[in-house]
């Protein structure tokens, strides 16, 4: 299953802060698109707007040609759009299997099978019956990814999947993403890890002050002076929280 994700002129302000300002982005179906930009450029806000956690002030969001602007998070998920969070969110008091069962819409037996498959796929199956709260940070990220996959979404948004994760695990993640992509799943990935982004993505978009300043193939974007400007112009590039 695959679909195109498109935004048109999204604007969103919080009080006096204009987080998104005319953001237009197209994520082609079946592609892995990277979204980079300095801190405060609006990446997570864009995710929130697209997935229904926030409503945009203006602008439209299209999933597979269908307009989903302002739809609730529940509905957006049902339409085939999944996401992960910058600060990993799981259900700590449910077991790993139960975490996955929340997302699958199927019967119990089919759900259990799918849960097992996904745990194997992400490599955390040995903890299947344990409470999710006991997992390490990296394992939680994998669980979160597995949970999103449980409903077989057409488009997946990943918010800093490699953040705070060791290099081996990052390779593991990248491989899993490529596997899924080869079956058609579209990805939009926010990341600060340039190596990860440049090595994995088909195209990269750069967000600065709430709008897309550059978009194109990774090598082209990496050498575009506007990108360097965006990152180094206003503030030093550091690993910090929050958009």
């Amino acid at each position, binding site marked *: 299953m695959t679909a195109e994700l498109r935004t048109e002129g999204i604007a969103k302000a919080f009080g006096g802060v204009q987080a998104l300002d005319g953001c237009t982005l197209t994520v082609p179906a079946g592609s892995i698109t990277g979204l980079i930009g300095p801190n405060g450029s609006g990446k997570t806000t864009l995710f929130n707007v697209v997935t229904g956690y926030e409503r945009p002030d203006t602008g439209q969001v299209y999933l597979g040609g269908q307009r989903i602007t302002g739809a609730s*998070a529940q509905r957006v*998920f049902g339409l085939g759009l999944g996401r992960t*969070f910058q600060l990993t969110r799981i259900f700590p008091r449910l077991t790993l299997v139960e975490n996955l069962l929340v997302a699958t819409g199927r019967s119990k037996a089919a759900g*259990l*099978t799918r849960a097992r498959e996904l745990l194997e796929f992400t490599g955390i199956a040995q903890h299947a019956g344990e409470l999710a709260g006991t997992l390490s940070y990296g394992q939680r990220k994998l669980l979160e990814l597995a949970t999103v996959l449980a409903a077989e979404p057409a488009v997946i948004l990943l918010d800093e999947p490699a953040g705070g994760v060791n290099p081996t695990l990052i390779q593991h993640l990248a491989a899993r993403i490529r596997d899924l992509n080869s079956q058609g799943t579209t990805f939009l990935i926010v990341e600060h890890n340039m190596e990860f982004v440049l090595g994995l993505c088909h195209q990269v978009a750069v967000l600065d002050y709430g709008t897309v300043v550059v978009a194109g193939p990774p090598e082209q974007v990496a050498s575009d002076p506007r990108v360097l400007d965006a990152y180094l112009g206003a503030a030093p590039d550091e690993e910090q929280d929050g958009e």
Partner: protein
Amino acid sequence: MTPSAVRQDAARAARPRRGQPGWSGLPARPLLIAAGVLAVVAAAVLFPVAFPSPVATTYGFDTLIFVACASAWNLFSGYSGYLSLGNAVFFGSGVYAVAVGAQDWHLTGTAVFGLLPLAAAVGGGIAIPLGLIALRVRRHTFVVITIAFFFIFQLMAFNLAFTGGTSGLVAPILNWSGATYNNPFYYAALLLAGATVAVSWLIRRSRFGLHLRAIRDDEDRARGLGVPALRVKLAAFVLCGAITGLAGGLWYYFIGAAAPQSAFDPLFDLALVLMAFFGGLGTVAGPVLGALVIEPTQQWLTARFTSNYLSEILLGALFLVVILFMPRGVLPTASEWLARWRAAWRRRREPGAETRP
């Protein structure tokens, strides 16, 4: 992996591990649990035969009513994490549903029992508008709203004409022999309690229960994964209301009178919370244990020391002790100790086999 092997593995993976507190609150050993449940049920059924005195069966009746109400409370509040301090609203509504119904339709004798489904309907029906208002707010505010609802209902009971005002309503006379008068009530309460625990258990194993618990852990995330949060919460709330309402109706006929202070009693709400917490919040057996321990104790204290205040102080102190030292309740804490003790014992039996602390 062959498909069948995957399925077998999946099924095995889905069961809680040995020794770990399973969702029933007890160590996961199905045969042991089944035997235990049968024993408890048998004891409960034979209780009035072994202790036929009206005092004993009254204790029994009260305790069973609380088993039902605590389980119902836990089924909503324990699973979803939305603590309700207003369940007395449902209880009292059930009380007055039967009281007013018996009075207006001139029912007497065993016919009054026919009003019990009405009590359940009223309890559940009231939960719908209340839930639609209260379940849209965050948890802190939810608790306060339930308290507000409680006071509104108590006030209505005091002030509205059809509820008989401060003096309340009196039940029609039931012409049963004194010695065995309590017994039908006891068994009705036992049936209700048993059904409630069974429902609680079924929910715990179901997708519905899973959704509730996901809501408890992270409601927004649950919504983002497709859980229809409001509908799920409301359904549990209505179910809780219906059961509690039915209990109220039954209790009314047993006591024989409906009055605002007793039908809508804040200590009722406290007792429910305490019982569920004591036994183990969010487990199936927890509220049962809590009710079995706390209700008889409270009754005994009230009988022994005629003024209420001592039981209040003790109840409050017990509550504090539970919160501070056994926050997850007796059953989960006990099974954890048990698991740890067993692991230590195993280690002592096989020295050098394990070096894990």
